[in-house]
């Protein structure tokens, strides 16, 4: 059993190394990101509901360990007793960082709930894959949008509801926030790199390949954001200039994300490039510089796969 956990630890380190985090910085970086995100949840949600939301997030993470195929493998490989111990220990280990943060927030009862639910969940396996096909409006040009939509479809009503709420309570900022939230979601569709085969098969030059990706992305983003932009334009007509500027900026960042996606191809975007991308999002003039940087790097990487060498 010890060997199993040592192996898991080694595999985790390999994943993080592939992401470009130097070995020495792996755990300080992880702890910092975890603290920042935890802090953000408590800050954004507000005191009254933060602990509920935090508990919900922790459970959503732990629940993934109950995935059926993984558990079938464990059941086949270990004795019943060892399997039960592994599952319980895994859930406890994963719950611990959340529990430690809850100590900091002095939410002691939630720690008890968290460990109890964690131990209870170790007794169950979940079939998270569904055979039901979620319909998508983006099927004509499949890939990033159709897949992204299926993974995050439940967020669309929430975002559109925020727009509706902004109109109802006459809060323009909330409306703009819903638009920004939508684009953060759309940009997230471009964070996972595809298998080399799915780039190779295109008969385009690297430049045309990127242009086609951008065209699809912009058209589908226009389609997804239209309900928000049109509603805000009608109900907050006085702010039409701001709406247009924000919309244009969103498109700029979306295009930047599409271009940056291939800057480390065929590998996933590395940490240094993710940081450059993040910084350029928070400081607009930098985006204009990094745009060229990402474009050149992506073209260079795509050339080796898309350009015919025969």
């Amino acid at each position, binding site marked *: 059993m010890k060997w199993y956990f040592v192996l898991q630890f080694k595999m985790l380190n390999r994943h993080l190394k592939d992401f470009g985090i130097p070995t020495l910085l792996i755990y300080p970086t992880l702890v910092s990101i975890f603290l920042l995100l935890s802090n953000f949840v408590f800050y954004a949600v507000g005191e009254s509901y933060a602990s509920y939301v935090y508990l919900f997030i922790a459970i959503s993470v732990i629940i993934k360990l109950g995935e059926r195929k993984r558990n079938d493998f464990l059941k086949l490989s270990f004795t019943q007793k060892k399997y039960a111990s592994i599952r319980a220990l895994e859930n406890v280990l994963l719950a611990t960082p959340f529990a430690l943060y809850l100590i900091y927030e002095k939410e002691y009862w939630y720690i008890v709930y968290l460990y109890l639910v964690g131990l209870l969940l170790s007794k169950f396996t979940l079939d998270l*894959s569904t*055979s039901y*096909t*979620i319909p998508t409006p983006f*099927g*004509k*040009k*499949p*890939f990033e949008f*159709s*897949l992204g939509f*299926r*993974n995050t479809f439940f967020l669309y009503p929430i975002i559109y509801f925020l727009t509706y709420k902004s109109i109802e309570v006459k809060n323009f900022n909330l409306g703009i926030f819903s638009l920004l939230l939508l684009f953060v979601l759309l940009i997230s569709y471009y964070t996972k790199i*595809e*298998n*080399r*085969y*799915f780039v*190779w*098969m*295109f*008969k385009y030059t690297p430049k045309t390949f990127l242009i086609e990706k951008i065209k699809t992305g912009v058209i589908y983003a226009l389609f997804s954001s239209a309900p928000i932009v049109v509603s805000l334009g009608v109900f907050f007509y006085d702010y039409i200039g701001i709406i247009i500027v924000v919309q244009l900026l969103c498109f700029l960042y979306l295009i930047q994300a599409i271009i940056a996606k291939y800057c480390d191809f065929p590998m996933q975007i590395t940490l240094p490039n993710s940081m450059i991308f993040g910084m350029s999002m928070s400081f607009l003039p930098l985006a204009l510089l990094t745009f060229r940087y990402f474009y050149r790097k992506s073209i260079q990487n795509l050339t*080796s*796969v898309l350009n*015919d*060498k*025969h």
Partner: protein
Amino acid sequence: MISIKDLSKNYGTNSVLKHINIDLKKGNVYGIVGENGAGKTTFFNCLSGIEKYKGKIDSVKNLKDIIGFLQTEFYFFPKITGREYIQLLLNARDVGVENIDQRNIFDLPLDKYAMNYSTGMKKKLALTAILLQENTVFILDEPFNGVDIQSNIIITEIIHQLKKLNKLVIISSHIFSTLATTCDEIHVLKEGSFVKKVMKEDFEALEDEMKAKTLLNTIDKLELK
């Protein structure tokens, strides 16, 4: 149509392909056989242009854009339907197909997620997609593996049709009978080099030779008890 000269491929110090030379002509079906690790998949990856290599491949301009490549281990996105997978591959080559359902000869459930297909169904989906792309060259890495007998018969017939249509087909298979019924010539790949070229009339002798070599003392080494 394709002339491969002195093709080599190394992974670090490990030499996987060594000075491969072969001419491949339109209207012919070529079989590639070899033990696991002989370099078949690497050869296909180099030929298709997915992997870099040393040496020269002379052919038409943009050869990669007319190759339909059925990989032995293909990847499917988690939530893409069979129909969308086909559409994605058609979009990649700017090919329009009016009625995908009509051309779904393997009766695949196209509106279900491809990830949930069985191994054989996944293979049939990938094959359907590259066939609809209207390619001129087909690289089929283990097309018969994991598919049912009925589909094996259909795939064999498809290969015959492709030959009639003057396409170039290159196949690898561990099932010798499937190669014997489809190929014009078979090339034996061993430790990264083509060591033998066998024409149709000598296929039987090749199979006997391979059987004899493979079984020689091999099972005894297991010391089964």
